Structure formats: structure tokens, C-alpha cells
């Protein structure tokens, strides 16, 4: 029972962190802040899903953990690219 309570507490903490990050997403002020927060949300999601898997005794979401890792990386890269040079994919490497 205590175990589950610990899990729930962790989940709540994670939720709070996500909310905190959402606050940052909303608040900004710069795009970079938002992307950063989004990245953090992705990471928090990974953690929450992990905790959740424990709570539900399921392996079903392990794939998701990795996938979120991948996608949050790809997404962050894309965002960063966008804010940095205003375009996402280069036609040709001018450099």
C-alpha cells in the first residue's frame, strides 16, 4: 500500500512539474523558453509513463517511453531549427 502511495505521490509531483512547464510554455517570454519547456514536458511525460507502468503493472507503454524520447528530440531539434534560422529543413548546406 505504501508503495502505491509513493507512486501516486510521484505521479502528483510529475503532474505538478508538467503544469509548471505548461506555465512556462504559456508565459514564454521567448520561443526558446517555450521549446525548452516543451522538451521538459516530453521528459516529464516519459517519467510519468514509467511511473504509470509501474502502477498498472504493464509493459505496454515501454515502447512509448522510447518513442517519446525520440520524438521529443526530433521535435525539439525542429523547433530549435525553426527559431534559429526560420526554416526547418535546409535545401542545401550553404556552409
Amino acid at each position, binding site marked *: 500500500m505504501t508503495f502505491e502511495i509513493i507512486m501516486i505521490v510521484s505521479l502528483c509531483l510529475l503532474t505538478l512539474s508538467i503544469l509548471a512547464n505548461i506555465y512556462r510554455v504559456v508565459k514564454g517570454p521567448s520561443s526558446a523558453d517555450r521549446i525548452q519547456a516543451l522538451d521538459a514536458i516530453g521528459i516529464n511525460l516519459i517519467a510519468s509513463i514509467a511511473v504509470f507502468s509501474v502502477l498498472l503493472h504493464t509493459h505496454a507503454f515501454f515502447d512509448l517511453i*522510447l518513442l517519446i524520447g525520440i520524438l521529443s528530440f526530433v521535435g525539439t531539434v525542429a523547433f530549435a531549427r525553426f527559431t534559429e534560422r526560420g526554416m526547418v529543413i535546409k*535545401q542545401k*548546406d550553404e556552409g
Partner: protein
Amino acid sequence: MKPNDVILQSVTKVTVIIIFTFSVYLFLNGHHHPGGGFIGGLSTAAAIVLLFLAFDIEKVRENFQIDFKKLAALGVLIAIGTGFTGMLAGDPFLTQYFNDKNLPIFGKTELATALIFDTGVALAVIGTAVSIILSISEGDSLWKR
């Protein structure tokens, strides 16, 4: 200042391999675990997109000389094709078959035509996703002319 993509590019090289492996895993595993053609395909597409992000289109194109639209069409064709095979056997369209076989290396493996169908799905998804992203990126220069 010229953008210095060394970090990104070297990490990308590693991660892309991971992603590819992972997508193949997702794809093959789909029948029994979460995953399947669609997700496998999309994560493959994500890997390709990551390549595009880290490098430039032409460089990637050198290595992937595929018309992704045709790939997508091919995927759909495969999917329809599996449907037709069922018909040839006199069963309804899209009947899937599965059987457990002992293969030399893999041991007892389940062989299912659903996998071929799923391959079609995966190809279609890869093809479409990448071609969408590419056409937007490429199309722009044409458009402005």
C-alpha cells in the same frame, strides 16, 4: 556566424540508427505488442526527417534515391495485393492467414500474411510522411519563381 551543426550531426548519426532499429522492432512486434506498421512507418519517417533536419536535403537525397510518393503508392498496392491473394484462394477479400513455422535461425516463428499487409502500411506511411515534408520544403523554391 555559420551554424555549427557538428554536435547535432554526430548525435544524429547514432540516434538515427537507434530509431531505425527501434522502428523495425515496433513494426515487427506490432502483432503482439503495441506498435505495428503505422507506428513503425512513422518512426522510420521520423528518423528520415531527423536526417533532413541535421543535414540538408541534397545530401540525404544522395543516399535515399527514392521517390517517396511512389513508395507510398507501392505500400498501398502491397496492402491491396494481400487482399487479392485471399481472393485467389477463394476466400473473401483481405483474408489473412497465419501459421507457426519452425525456421532455421529464428526458431518457432509465427508467419502471418498480416505482416505483409502491415509492410504495405508501413511503406505507405513512410512514403507519405516524408514526401509531405519534402514537398513543402522543396516546393517553396519552385513556387517563388
